[in-house]
C-alpha cells in the first residue's frame, strides 16, 4: 500500500546544525543569487494574483452589483477572503459552484441556477459574471449561456449581466480588472449614447487601485475644482462602509445610471494605463468628449500633471486651495528630505503603483535601487527606465521584470537597501534583510487602516513622506548608542 515511490526505508534523520548554518549562509550569497535568477520554471513568492480577483474588485465598484464567479466555489472564497483581509470589510460575492459534472457537461446549468438563486436572495441591480479556471479550460460560452438564462427567465430580461472572461493562466489581477470594467461599461452604456448630449461631467477611472483613501482623494480634488464627475468603479464606499449597526450588502459604488450616461461625458480620464488598456482603447472609440490615460498621480510631478490635465479639460484655473495644498506637500518634502535623501529602496508591485513609487522616491532624492515587477511588459520596463534616466538618483538603479519575491530576497541580501516598499508579502524578505517594509499597494494583511490613507495626490505625498521619514527616525532612536540618543531629530 505505502511507498508507491519505491524509496528505500531509512531512519528518521535530523539535519546537522552545521549543515543548516551552511545553507543559511549560502542562500544569502552571490552564488545562490545566480542560481536563483537562473530559474526557468519554478515561481517562488510571486507578487501577483490572478485575473478574477481584479474582476471582483471592479464589480464591487458599482451600485447594487453582485460579483458572480462562474467556476468552482473555492475560487470565490479565495477572492472574498483576500479582499476581507485587506480592507477588513465584507466582500459579498457568489459562485455557481461548478464541480466534476461541469467538466463533462459544461457550466450552463450551474450558471442558470446560480443566477436565479443569487437574484432571489440578494436582489442585485446588476450581476457581474467573471470566470475562474474551470470554465476557461473547458471553453464555456458565456454569451450564449447568459442569453439563455434570460430566455428561461432565470433572471429578469432587463437585469444587466455583464460578463468577463478572466482566465487565471494569463495576466494578473490588473487584467481581470480591465476586462470586467470594459464589460460593465460596455453593457451599461449600450444604446445610451445620445447625439449632441453632454453630461458636462468628467468620467474618472481610478485603475486597479485597492486604496479606498485614493478614491476619496480623487473626489475631494474634483470637488475643489467644482467639476461634476462620475467616478467609475468606485470602491471607496464599498470598502470603507460605516459601522452603524446595519449591514448593507451593497454599501457603495458608482450609480448605474451615471455609469450608463458616462458615454455622453465631457471628458474621460483613465488612471493606470497598465490596468485599463482594454477599457481605455474602447472608450477612445465609443465615448463622447475627450479621452486621456494617465499614470497614477503619486508624487508631486505626477499629481501636477493630473491637476493640470483636469484644469485643461474643463478650461478651469487650478483652485487656490489646491495650489496651497501643493505648497504644503512640497513643504513637507523639503522639511524632511534629509531623512530620505540617498536612501536605497527596493520596490515591487503592479506597474501602475511602481511608476508612482519610483517617481516619488526620485523627487525625494532617494534611490529606487531594486525595482521588481512580478508580471510586467517591455513597455512598463521602458517607462520605468525613462524615469530613472531622468534623475541623477536613478543612476545605478536596476529594473527586474517578471521576477518574484524570492528573487527580491536575493537582491536585498546581496546588494543591501535601506528599506522596501511593497505589499505584506515582502515582510519575510524585509525581516531577513533587517530593513523596514513600507506597506503600500495590495494586499496589506498585517497592519490596520492603511487602505484609508491615500497615496495619490498632494495628500498622498504628505502621507508617504510622514510614514517613511518617521520610520527612519524611529530606527535611529531604537538602535543608536545611548550617547547619541537625543531630544531632537
Amino acid at each position, binding site marked *: *500500500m*505505502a*511507498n*508507491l*515511490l519505491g524509496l528505500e*526505508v*531509512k*531512519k*528518521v534523520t535530523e539535519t546537522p546544525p552545521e549543515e*543548516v548554518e551552511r*545553507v543559511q549562509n549560502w*542562500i544569502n550569497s552571490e552564488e545562490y543569487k545566480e542560481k*536563483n535568477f537562473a530559474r526557468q520554471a*519554478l*515561481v517562488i*513568492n*510571486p507578487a501577483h*494574483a*490572478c485575473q478574477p480577483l481584479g474582476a471582483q474588485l471592479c464589480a464591487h465598484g458599482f451600485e447594487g452589483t453582485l460579483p458572480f464567479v462562474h467556476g468552482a*466555489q*473555492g*475560487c470565490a*472564497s*479565495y477572492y*472574498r*477572503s*483576500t479582499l*476581507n*483581509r485587506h480592507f477588513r470589510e*465584507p*466582500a459579498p*460575492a*457568489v459562485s*455557481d*459552484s461548478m*464541480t*466534476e459534472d461541469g467538466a463533462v457537461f459544461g457550466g450552463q446549468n*450551474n450558471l442558470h*441556477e446560480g*443566477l*436565479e*438563486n*443569487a437574484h*432571489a*436572495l*440578494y436582489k442585485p441591480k446588476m450581476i457581474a459574471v467573471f470566470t475562474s*479556471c*474551470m470554465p476557461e*479550460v473547458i471553453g464555456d460560452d458565456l454569451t450564449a449561456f447568459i442569453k439563455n438564462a434570460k430566455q428561461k427567465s432565470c433572471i429578469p430580461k432587463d437585469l444587466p449581466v455583464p460578463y468577463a472572461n478572466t*482566465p*487565471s*493562466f494569463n495576466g*494578473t489581477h490588473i487584467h481581470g480588472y480591465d476586462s470586467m470594467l470594459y464589460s460593465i461599461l460596455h453593457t451599461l452604456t449600450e444604446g445610451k449614447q445620445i447625439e449632441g448630449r453632454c453630461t458636462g461631467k468628467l468620467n474618472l477611472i481610478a485603475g486597479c487601485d485597492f486604496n479606498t483613501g485614493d478614491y476619496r482623494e480623487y473626489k475631494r480634488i474634483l470637488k475643489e475644482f467644482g467639476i461634476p464627475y462620475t467616478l467609475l468603479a468606485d470602491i471607496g464606499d464599498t470598502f470603507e462602509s*460605516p459601522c*452603524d449597526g*446595519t*449591514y448593507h450588502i451593497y454599501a457603495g459604488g458608482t450609480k448605474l445610471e451615471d455609469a450608463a450616461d458616462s458615454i455622453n461625458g465631457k471628458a474621460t480620464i483613465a488612471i493606470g494605463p497598465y490596468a485599463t488598456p482594454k477599457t481605455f482603447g474602447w472608450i477612445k472609440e465609443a465615448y463622447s468628449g475627450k479621452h486621456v490615460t494617465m499614470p497614477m498621480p503619486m508624487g508631486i510631478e505626477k499629481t501636477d500633471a493630473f491637476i493640470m490635465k483636469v484644469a485643461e479639460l474643463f478650461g478651469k484655473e487650478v483652485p487656490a486651495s489646491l495650489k496651497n495644498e501643493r505648497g504644503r506637500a512640497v513643504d513637507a518634502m523639503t522639511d524632511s528630505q534629509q531623512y530620505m535623501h540617498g536612501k536605497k529602496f527596493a520596490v515591487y508591485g503592479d506597474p501602475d503603483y511602481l511608476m508612482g513609487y519610483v517617481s516619488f522616491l526620485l523627487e525625494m532624492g532617494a534611490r529606487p535601487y531594486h525595482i521588481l515587477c512580478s508580471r510586467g511588459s517591455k513597455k512598463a520596463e521602458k517607462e520605468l527606465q525613462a524615469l530613472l534616466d531622468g534623475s541623477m538618483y536613478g543612476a545605478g538603479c536596476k529594473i527586474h521584470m517578471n521576477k518574484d519575491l*524570492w528573487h527580491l530576497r536575493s537582491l536585498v541580501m546581496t546588494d543591501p537597501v535601506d528599506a522596501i516598499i511593497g505589499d505584506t*508579502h515582502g515582510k*519575510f524578505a524585509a525581516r531577513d534583510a533587517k530593513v523596514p517594509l513600507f506597506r503600500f499597494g495590495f494586499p496589506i494583511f498585517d497592519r490596520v487602516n492603511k487602505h484609508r490613507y491615500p497615496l495619490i495626490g498632494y495628500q498622498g505625498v504628505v502621507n508617504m513622506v510622514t510614514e517613511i521619514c518617521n520610520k527612519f527616525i524611529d530606527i535611529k532612536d531604537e538602535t543608536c548608542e545611548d550617547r547619541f540618543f537625543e531630544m531632537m531629530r
Partner: protein
Amino acid sequence: MSDKIRTVEGITKESTQAMIDDALSVYPEKARKKRTPHLAPNDAASGCASVKSNKKTVPGVMSARGCAYAGAKGVVWGPIRDMVHVSHGPVGCGWYSWGTRRNLMTGINGVTQFGMQFTSDFQEKDIVYGGDKKLKTLLHEAHDLFPLAKGISVLSECPVGLIGDDINSVTKTVSKELDIPIIPCNCEGFRGVSQSLGHHISNDSIRDYIIETREFAEPSTPYDIALIGDYNIGGDVWSAKSLLEEIGLNVKSVWTGDGELEKIAATHTVKLNLIHCYRSMNYMCKVMEEKYGIPWLEFNFFGPTKIRESLRAIAERFDDVIKEKVELAIAKYEPIMQAIIDEYKPRLDKKKVMLLVGGLRPRHTIGAYEDLGMDCVGAGYEFAHGDDYDRTAPEMPDATVVYDDPSEYEFEKFAHALKPDLIGSGIKEKYVFQKMGIPFRQMHSWDYSGPYHGYQGFEIFARDVDMAVNSPTWKLVKAPF
C-alpha cells in the same frame, strides 16, 4: 458527551423551525428543496444528526465553502514545515493560501522551513501543451535551491486535472532521480463538494506515498503516541504537545501542524493515535488501525471541562504511571482554570454564541464557551459529514438551530432572529456581523491570536471571548443623533 439535555430559554423546536421556514421563504423552489434538509432544530436526545450534509453547494447562494485544493494545501500539506509544497497550476490558488491559515512553524524560512508560495504559475501555453515538462524542471530547481527540504508535494489545481497532465508519473521519475519523496496529490478544486475531499485525497496520498517509509532511530516505548489533526493554528500544537508530554507521553509525530515529513512517515510504529480534528484525519487513523493495529482516540483540548474528560480518557489507555501524572496535571491546572473562570464568567454568563466553522470546531469549542457560562444557540459546519453532526447533537442545547453549509443569507437571518452576543466564524463573515454591531471572533484563525488548545490556550480563549463581547467599542455603534 454531556449527560443531561440542556435548553436555552426562549428556544423551542417550533421557534427554531419557524425561523428556518422564514429564511427559506425567499428561495426559488428548487433551491428551497435542496436547502431544507440542511437546516433543522437540534435533537439532543437522539444523539444523531438532524441535518443532511456533505452535499453539493447550491449554486449562487453565497457559501463559505472552499475547495479540495484548499483542504489539501491549506489544511493537510501546508503545515508540514520541512517540505516544499508546489501549487501546481495558475498563480492564484497558491497566492491566496499563502500564509493565510496561521499554521505556525519552527525552523528557518527558506532553509529548514518552507512556509512560502511555490507555484508553476501556469500560462496559456501550459494549458495548451501541458505542464508536465515544466513540472519536471521546477522540481529539480526546488531541490537545487532548497537542499534541506525533506520532500516535495505537488498539489494539483483545477486545470491540471482538466487538461490530463500526468503528475503521478512525473513525480515518480523525479523522485527516483533526486532520491527524495515527491508526492503527487490530485486535489483539483472542482473535485467533491468542499475542502473535505481534499483532506481525504491528502490522507490517501500519505497512505500511498509516505507512511512506512521511515523508522524512528530511537527504540520504541509504551508511551509513544502521535498527535493527529492538530495544525498548530496560533501555536496550538505547542500547547497540546507540552501537556501530553507533561502526562508522560512521547509525542513522536504531529499531523501536520509544525509537522516533519520523516516523523510522519514513521508514525506506523506508535502505540496510540490521538486525534483532534476528526473530520480531516479520521481516514488515516482508520488506515493505521486496520493495517498496523494502532488504536485511535478522539480528544478535545478546548476548555478545562473537556480537557479533564479527555486527559482521563487518554489515561485509560495507559498504565498507572500515566494515570497518576494525569491526575497530578488536572490537580495542578484546575485551580488556575478556576481563577480564569472566576475572572471572566461574571461578564460572560448567559451570553449567547453562534458558531459556523469548518468540520470540527463548533462541537469541540461548545464546552469551552460553557465553561465561561455561555450558551451555544446555533452551530453549523462548512464541510462536515453525518458523523460530525452525530457528534454535535449531544453537545448542543436541545432545539437550537443546526445549519449545514449555510448561505450568508441564512446565517444573517438566523443572527437577526437569535441576536447572539458573539458569533464565531470566518473572515468572510466577520465584517458582515460587526457592521451589525455583533461581536465576532474568527474561529478558523483564532483571529490572529491563540493558542486555544490545552490549559495554556484556555486563558487566551477566555480573554479573547471577553474582549470581543465586552469591548466598549460596541457601545459606540449607534450614534446619539
